[in-house]
């Protein structure tokens, strides 16, 4: 079924996002609480949330602020965590190719993991028709609203929570909840193991560069494991999010068949 009006597609996008909201709200709450515990003012926290609109980067930045990290290290670390948006942007681009800037700029701002995944599924099914960008806008804007409200709720709860609850432990728990499903194959597992171990060993590294170093080591490990597996026949690397992006960006690669299906 194709959407016949923009409104219909927009509302379908909102409805598609709703099941994802319960997963996002606790993350937002914890982010708001953490920011306040960190000594950020409610206004600064809301400003940060509007500017970032990226939970993992926001949490990492807060953790680095807590450790008095060098500002440039915080910026680079946050942007490395957000590098995945480059991939999503590449994957979405062909579907937004004919839209004017008054559409593409706001749509880019609300690009999130959830809105991307929901929309790209819809687009590749070919079910969005002429109104695909309305569907994406519906999912993207409701995700944005959910996130902003959840963080704001956390900000106002934050002052009320006693330290004996050890709520700082909620941060690694939320990351853990995201980490486990992101380990989809042995290359990802290698990346996670090396990233984690290097981060533990480099915890006292100057300027808090440990997180950055650990991430780069983990990513390289993933690439090495992937290369090693590809040499062995009969081994199929299961499809991962990156492959959807590749379809649209590198036609030459598709021809050579270098990519896993």
């Amino acid at each position: 079924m194709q959407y016949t009006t923009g409104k219909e597609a927009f509302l379908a996008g909102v409805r598609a996002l709703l099941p994802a909201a319960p997963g996002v709200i606790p993350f937002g709450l914890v982010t708001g609480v953490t920011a306040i515990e960190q000594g950020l003012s409610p206004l600064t926290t809301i400003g940060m949330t509007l500017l970032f609109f990226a939970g993992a980067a926001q949490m990492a930045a807060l953790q680095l602020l807590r450790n008095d990290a060098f500002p440039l290290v915080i910026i680079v670390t946050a942007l490395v965590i957000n590098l995945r948006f480059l991939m999503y942007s590449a994957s979405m681009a062909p579907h937004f190719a004919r839209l004017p800037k008054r559409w593409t700029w706001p749509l880019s701002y609300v690009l999130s993991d959830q809105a991307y995944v929901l929309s790209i599924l819809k687009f590749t099914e070919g079910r969005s028709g002429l109104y695909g960008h309305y569907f994406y806008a519906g999912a993207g804007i409701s995700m944005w609203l959910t996130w902003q409200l959840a963080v704001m709720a956390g900000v106002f709860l934050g002052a009320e929570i006693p330290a004996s609850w050890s709520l700082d432990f909620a941060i690694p728990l939320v990351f853990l909840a995201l980490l486990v499903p992101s380990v989809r194959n042995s290359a990802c597992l290698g990346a996670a193991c090396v990233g984690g171990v290097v981060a533990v060993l480099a915890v006292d590294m100057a300027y808090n560069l440990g997180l950055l170093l650990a991430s780069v080591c983990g990513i390289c490990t993933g690439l090495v494991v992937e290369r090693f597996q590809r040499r062995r026949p009969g081994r199929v690397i299961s499809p991962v999010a990156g492959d959807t992006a590749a379809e649209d960006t590198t036609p030459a690669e598709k021809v050579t068949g270098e990519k896993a299906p």
Partner: protein
Amino acid sequence: MSELELWLLFLAVGLGTFALRLSFIQFHAQLRLPAVLNRALTYVPASVLAALVLPSVVNSGVDGELSLLSPRTLAALAAALVAWKTKNILFTLFSGMAVLWLLQSLG
């Protein structure tokens, strides 16, 4: 860090993040993501998340020293199991916190 410095820091990350999001959507025709970078990006979540989780779980001792058998490591193990079985952030959060509180009240 002063309030102004914080805002400048957040503005820098915000603009950088917006640039990443806009990149290909705006410059689709001119940009090509190198194949190796494209593959590398698939390993960003696993590496970064593990690097964020592990130190705050095992370096939780006094002055951030390594402690492998603490309430936090046990709670994290329980939470990882729940995350694996349910793939649910809320359940993971609650089970991890519950185990931590239980162990803290016992110890």
